[in-house]
């Protein structure tokens, strides 16, 4: 008889996705390595499947072929009639949903880790899609504690209009893993090592959980997205100002209304404005120029989780 508040089903099926964006190389090469030598990611009693989600984009070392795979896993796209005319990534999303989902059903994978890199100076980042998920809050708490003193930040994208239909969202427990800074098309050993450690701690947590360990109530600091900010542009849509040197590389650091955020090509400084302190993330991410996002504003929150344990014990 346990004192645990929330008993959860043991975890059986875990997937690790790499290459959702074909030029974010850490996930690509970790998954390729684990496909030939998977010892490191095996845990007794757990099925852990590494998988390359966008092989054509990986082949061309580009983010995507037709459209961003990590934005198309909504029910509308997943339900479209299969046809040659569908964008490659939508067809691929349907295949992935069939293999690892279906989304919103009981048959899908329990956990999917989706590996990403960013050109932003975000360090080790875990991405949470649901602020009330005790299991994932506990997992993230465990990973963050295990990685210390290496910082690990938690980005909460639970926002009605800003949240997006990720590849990993077909699992019961979707986990985004984002490590930067790393240029597109470059594989850095230090970044690879950090991502590898994050996965190791995540799998250790799942194993401990399945073995019956009880995780007491915990709290984590998270950064919740509130708004995306585009670059200043002219009438033709061309970028007229760049991220100010004071903001460049300062992801997660407090940004105040009077602080510089952009500097125009003719030298004018543009401040944040508004009336509250925010914490910027995805500052100067290469892939977001076309998505009209120079950085995202977040606010700091604390999320709590009840104690959890596996219902099997």
């Amino acid at each position, binding site marked *: 008889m346990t004192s645990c508040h929330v008993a959860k089903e043991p975890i059986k099926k875990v997937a690790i996705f790499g290459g959702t964006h074909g030029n974010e190389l850490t996930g690509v*090469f*970790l998954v*390729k*390595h684990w496909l030939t*030598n998977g010892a490191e990611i095996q845990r007794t009693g757990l099925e852990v499947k590494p998988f390359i989600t966008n092989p054509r984009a990986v082949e061309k*070392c*580009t983010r995507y072929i037709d459209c961003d795979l990590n934005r198309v896993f909504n029910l509308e796209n997943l339900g479209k009639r299969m046809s040659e005319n569908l964008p490659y990534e939508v067809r691929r999303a349907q295949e992935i949903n069939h293999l690892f989902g279906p989304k919103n059903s009981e048959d899908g994978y329990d956990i999917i880790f989706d590996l990403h890199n960013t*050109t932003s100076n975000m360090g080790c980042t875990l991405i949470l899609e649901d602020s009330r998920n005790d299991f994932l809050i506990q997992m993230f708490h465990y990973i963050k504690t295990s990685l210390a003193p290496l910082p690990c930040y938690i980005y909460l994208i639970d926002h009605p209009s800003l949240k997006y239909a990720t590849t990993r969202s077909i699992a019961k427990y979707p986990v985004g893993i984002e490590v930067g*800074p*790393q*240029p*597109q*098309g*470059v*594989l*850095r*050993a*230090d970044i*690879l*090592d950090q991502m590898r450690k994050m996965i190791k701690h995540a799998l250790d947590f799942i194993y401990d959980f399945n073995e019956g360990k009880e995780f007491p109530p915990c709290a984590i600091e998270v950064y919740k997205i509130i708004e995306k900010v585009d670059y200043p542009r002219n009438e033709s849509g*061309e*970028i007229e100002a*760049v*991220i*100010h*040197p004071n903001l*460049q590389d300062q992801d997660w650091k407090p940004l105040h209304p009077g602080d510089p955020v952009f*500097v125009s*090509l*003719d030298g004018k400084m543009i401040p944040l404005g508004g009336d509250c302190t925010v914490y910027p993330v995805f500052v*100067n*991410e*290469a*892939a977001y*120029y*076309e998505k009209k996002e120079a950085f995202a504003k977040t606010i700091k929150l604390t999320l709590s989780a009840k104690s959890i344990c596996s219902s099997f014990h």
Partner: protein
Amino acid sequence: MCALPTPWEPLRRVAVTGGTHGNELGGVYLVRHWLQAPGELQRPSFSATPILANPAATAVCRRYVDQDLNRTFTNTFLTSKAAPDDPYEVTRAQELNQQLGPKGSDQAFDFILDLHNTTANMGTSFILEATRNLFPEATFSMHLCRYLQLQSPELTYSILEYQAPGETNGLPSVAKNGICLEMGPQPQGVLRADIFSRMRALVASTLDFIELFNRGTAFPAFDVEVYRILDSVDFPRTEDGHLAGTVHPQLQDRDFEPLLPGAPIFKLFNGKDVLYDGDSTVYPVFINEAAYYEKSVAFLKSRKLTVSVPALPALTAAPTLAP
């Protein structure tokens, strides 16, 4: 290939090219800015022409469409008969050769400054392409580098000499004199304000130097360290050619620092180290440049040597100012 003499007339026809690789954004944004506001490129004795070298690649933010433009300025490509199914960059190289060349002729532009970025930690570097000897071909460009260094003595600028096997093939080689300005680290598809403003200041100082020369300034001989590129080292690969590891943490970001035999250069995915097995110290550059993975280059080896640059004599005739 005849050696080009040092200029004996003022330099009138100068080009600053950006977007030779469409995802190296420093040059792209500078050229776009100058096309709308060219005042910055004007000097009393000449005006520099801003050119977006690879517009199609720039439009899709990729290095190239069909082939690397900055390897396409060879005699073969430049003189081949134009065909509708030519690679985009061959057609473009021929257009640029018309506008800025013809390469090797007396009608060619006097000087091309070609703007580049790298994902490697190379700070501010100048790349000279030479067929055999650096001098007298590169005398003018070497004096330019010296002038730029003296303007900012607290910063480290590096000069790389690349000896083309056979003929030169880069964009600057179309003009009588030319140089690549390479700044990093900056990811492809990213514009960093610090790199952008430093690149802009270097272009301004370059034009100031040309103006000084045009006004009859003489520049004395000097000695300088250059890095002469030797050969390249590929990533460790599996039997089927895929990456088996990447640049070792102890080599990453250490461009221009001495690499000794026995030092680690790669970390394999299985955790093992690969050590440098050369028999002498080399100076690695372009360490972990994104665009070089497909060229099978993890880094380039270079030798550091001191070269004696001959004096750049003053123009004897008083220059006439541009109308």
